[in-house]
């Protein structure tokens, strides 16, 4: 079986083939790994990497968000991954100066718009705060995903917003 895995904006083709009980041949972008894998709980994987002298690694892959979106935990660090091309909104907000095209600043959780810091037509830099949303008792500044021009301000101060609601559009 072949999967299309996206982590940190980089796409890798990964094919998995069962070699024997608990043993798999995994090819990542052409590089082959012989792996002894055991499930630990619902989301954990204990991996013994044969080619690397029996190196033992623990990785957890837990669903987060929509189908195909997972959070991968590796040595205390957490990265988002997508399986077979389903991209998260989070990933696009993360792409910084490289981001292209029209992008939206969306409410990541339900809250109340406290202040709108830009107006339609304003020029913004990447990571410039554009709107302040109060959620979980804290005021959070949402930043522009890219440098560009404010195409649309879709909310006003005082508005209650649901998670995923488009607040500001940047082009």
């Amino acid at each position: 079986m072949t999967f299309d895995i996206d982590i940190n904006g980089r796409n890798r083709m990964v094919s998995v083939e069962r070699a024997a009980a608990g043993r798999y041949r995994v090819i990542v972008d052409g590089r082959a790994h012989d792996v002894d894998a055991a499930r630990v709980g619902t989301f954990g994987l204990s991996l013994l990497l044969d080619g690397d002298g029996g190196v033992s690694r623990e990785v957890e892959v837990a669903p987060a968000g929509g189908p195909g979106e997972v959070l991968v935990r590796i040595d205390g660090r957490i990265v988002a991954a997508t399986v077979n091309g389903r991209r998260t909104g989070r990933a696009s907000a993360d792409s910084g100066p490289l981001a292209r095209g029209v992008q939206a600043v969306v409410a990541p959780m339900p809250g109340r718009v406290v202040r709108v810091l830009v107006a339609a037509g304003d020029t913004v830099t990447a990571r410039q705060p554009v709107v302040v949303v109060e959620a979980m008792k804290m005021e959070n500044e949402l930043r522009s995903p890219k440098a560009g021009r404010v195409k649309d301000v879709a909310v006003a101060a005082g508005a209650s917003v649901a998670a995923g609601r488009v607040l500001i559009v940047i082009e």
Partner: protein
Amino acid sequence: MPEPARRPVEPCPTLLRFMKILIANRGEIAVRIIRACREMGLPTVAVYSDCDRNARHVREADQAFHIGPSEAAKSYLRIDRILDAAARAGADAVHPGYGFLAENAAFARACRDAGLTFIGPSPKAMALMGSKTAAREAAIAAGVPVVPGTERPLDESVSDDDIAPMAEAVGYPLVVKAVAGGGGKGMRTVDDRASLSAAIRTARSEAGSAFGDSTIYLERRLVRPRHIEIQLLGDEHGTIVPFVERECSIQRRHQKVVEESPSIAVSPDLRRRIAGAAAAVARTVHYSNAGTIEFLLDETGSFYFLEMNTRLQVEHPVTEMVTSSDLVQWQIRIARGEKLDIDPERALTPHGHAIECRIYAEDPDQGFMPSPGLIRGLRPAAGPGVRDDGGVSAGYTVPVFYDSMIAKLVTWGPSRRDAVDRMARALREYQVLGIRTTIPFFLWLMRQPDYVAGRYETTYLDRLLAERNGQSFSELTESDEELASLATALDAYLRTSARYALAGQGSAQAPWKQAARREALRE
């Protein structure tokens, strides 16, 4: 159930009084208090809102009562409902924890009027020290230096134009603070006149929504101060015992995120002087139960009274770890009239070093945006010198309604360096699946040379974060990123084969299918 007021007075008041304690809180602090009560053999009563029905504190308490909808204002802040739950449960005492009603003098009074013992200071001391401006006056009366600032609270009727000359007198840079403030809310730094009005507006709006009181005051901002605080206990017989200081200078936007004890910047001599000043302030208000006096310590070793917190603090475990004490048990013992039986020398002598990291359901890679959601897996760190004060469990959905702290991870070591290394080890072990947490950020912090060397003050973290400009705390090496891809694909493969095998179950089960299924589900 009998009304608490109608209960007969126990003939032996000291040890038999309050057989049952209601905890007017939730999350990790409710669990912490339940642990203390269970060790003392005291039954506990939890209260919960709609979204907390399956919360950990509900399961760990002996009794639990629903007190309303998820919004705090309709549940955990409803004095009437909490008192009603206490009456239904037949509780004799109330522990408020921190946050919510913990520093609400009206709540303390209402408990007393209902015949319940409030585990905390008297309503009078609470009201006095709860006002930042009145607390400053108490410090001045005790001969303790305060940070220069406006002596008078400034309510909405005071215009920006009237405040501007006061700001000049205090001197820039200054901090606009909420009189009823706490936890960094309603607090803004101002560098010059041009940004004063905006800061006043934000501070008032935040203070109004967080505390129901938009009154503010101004305070000079010291240059690179450390935040040092003294935990103290006072009993109802006039004894005040101050403890080893806590160092809380690692703050993000005025919110403490890492606390330690002792402070690398405090010598035994300075410790005695700060502790003495803290005890003097507490004595002027006849303080009883647990409280903390916060100071700013500047580069010259001068310290200034900042404020007093009239409650148990989030970071109390680091004090417990270096003084081998249980502050929550002491709160309960003091409230039932016992005398403090702590050697003051021992309370001021740190044994080893302790560090606490506040683990929040926040995404450090998205500007620490709250990241509520379903916790799919949880395995707290353990092993030598590790303490987990957790408040959640797997299967619980972190709600959007409250503070997003899910656990406090504390490590102890014979030296500060040992405690730091142990924290890095414990953070790496700590597994929270399904939501983002601040664990990767703390792992990064524990490797920062200035943090490891103890070279930091209250502005350190914000400066360090600004320099990073949003760079991820979970940066993987090329080979780890490849491993993460490999594991993600393998996980998807195993799930897919398990589904195929299950789908095949209805028909005649081929042996290979059974084998594939067993393997795919292998745990």
